[in-house]
């Protein structure tokens, strides 16, 4: 490992810094240079794809089907100019974000409760599994019946989707808490509350975040599918109405915005994760030993 790194890094960093156990990773070492180069490669790839798209559109494939980058940018500019883009982003973001928060909160709470109280989990297990296997999106018509086609329908749908993912992860995390760590703390005289806050929750938090990270795209699915089914606002509505007008550039523009939203939501989760789990960063820096 070290040998190959040093061999590759000769040109950039003549003396590859040796990592000691406690020293932070050598940020300016060959790793950073390689990272910078990779960013460059990715940019090149992106530009190549966009250029090919622009060229192929209207020559190899009809523009009606694939639109073209310049037209998509123009469509975006129009929507920015009228202000409608931000209005719709705001709606979808509110739905996805509130649904995500509600689903995550209820999911974590339920996961911790069931994880710590075996009676409860034994009792509820078959019911939860039955609901888990149901595609949550199929509940949308029911939610429309109950709460109409307003913003709350999308929030509830999103929360339902997110709940199951976060719940199952939290539950597994709480269940897989090291029994030795719990025993060690109990020998120190720890109460159930101490065990919960000092061992169970910190140890389950990695699982919780794994659940949150996979929930991000599903939160957007909940919000946007909800809007596709019944709405007069939001990015799902923009998508549907652009399709209705055969406005391919508008469809791609909406997709692009949805992608950007997913990216922002993902980044937020990652930031919170890093903030709440500072020890993870140091674990990934550690030299591996087998």
């Amino acid at each position: 490992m070290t040998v190959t790194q040093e061999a590759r890094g000769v040109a950039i960093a003549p003396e590859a810094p040796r990592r000691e156990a406690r020293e932070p990773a050598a940020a300016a070492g060959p790793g950073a240079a390689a990272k910078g180069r990779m960013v460059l490669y990715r940019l090149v790839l992106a530009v190549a794809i966009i250029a090919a798209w622009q060229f192929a559109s209207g020559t190899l494939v009809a523009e009606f089907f694939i639109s073209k980058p310049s037209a998509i940018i123009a469509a975006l500019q129009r929507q920015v100019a009228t202000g409608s883009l931000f209005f719709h982003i705001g709606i979808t973001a509110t739905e996805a974000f509130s649904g995500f928060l509600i689903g995550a909160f209820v999911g974590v709470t339920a996961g911790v409760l069931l994880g710590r109280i075996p009676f409860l989990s034994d009792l509820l297990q078959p019911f939860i599994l039955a609901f888990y296997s149901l595609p949550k999106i199929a509940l949308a018509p029911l939610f429309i019946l109950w709460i109409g086609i307003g913003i709350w329908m999308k929030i509830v749908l999103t929360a339902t989707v997110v709940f199951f993912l976060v719940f199952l992860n939290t539950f597994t995390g709480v269940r897989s808490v090291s029994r030795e760590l719990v025993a060690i703390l109990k020998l120190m005289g720890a109460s159930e509350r101490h065990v919960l806050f000092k061992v169970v929750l910190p140890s389950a938090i990695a699982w919780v975040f794994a659940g949150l990270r996979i929930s991000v795209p599903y939160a957007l699915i909940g919000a946007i599918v909800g809007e596709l089914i019944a709405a007069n606002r939001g990015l799902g509505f923009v998508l549907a109405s652009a399709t209705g007008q055969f406005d391919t550039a508008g469809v791609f523009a909406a997709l692009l915005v949805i992608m950007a939203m997913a990216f922002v939501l993902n980044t937020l989760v990652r930031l919170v994760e890093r903030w709440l789990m500072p020890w993870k960063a140091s674990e990934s820096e550690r030299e591996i030993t087998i």
Partner: protein
Amino acid sequence: MSEPPAEPLISFHGVGKTFRVEGRTVEAVRDVELEIRRGEFVALVGPSGCGKSTLLNMTAGLFAPSMGEVRYAGRPVTGINLATGYMTQNDHLLPWRTVAANIQVPLEIRGRPRGEMRDKVAALMELVGLSGFERSYPAQLSGGMRKRAALARLLAYDPETLLLDEPFAALDAQLRLNMQIELLRLSRSLGKTVLFVTHDLDEAAALCDRCVVFSPRPGTIRRVLDSPLPRERDLLRLRRDPRWQEMAAELWDLITPMLASREERAE
């Protein structure tokens, strides 16, 4: 027994323990009769799987014996025994806490005031030679440093009895010697009772006041040897001490015949 018999701190009377593992019944220990006096350093040696750790677990009250009785300070052990502290081959530090925060855990549980905790943690870090690593996470430390942090945490809650299950097994020879010296010094000066499980017969002979030799599973007590060494001893010079050599040799003679049969018994 060189000293006059006193009220034992820990006593095992006719203790047996069976586990059910995948439908089979496994007998870990059988008919254990043992009394440990306050302040004594007792080593438990024997082949793998002979139930030495089982005895520690029952002393800690992590589970009850299937037969017989474990008594601590005159009372039967029922449930978690708060007078004992446990340290195993795994350091079991909390990976999400810094070293200082780890050592602080038992003090937090006792609800000590913040200032007192800070002073005590600093003193303990100094004691085990970890000053300067307060803000490191366990993953950033070497195995030996983690072990020392675990020892500091153990001392932070200051249990009457230390249950040590191969605590130094994963350390290199130098570090292990350092830790042994440290442990012996601390347990003597703080008047701790120590139950020390080890596979290392030389280590057992070096540290213990008494050494209990177990047979293969189901573990029964084969012999109890009194150490010929004085309680105050210099571990650095032991290698040349004929008393230590003799005891280690005796332990080897007791254990080696069991090794042949161990192969078949290993799970």
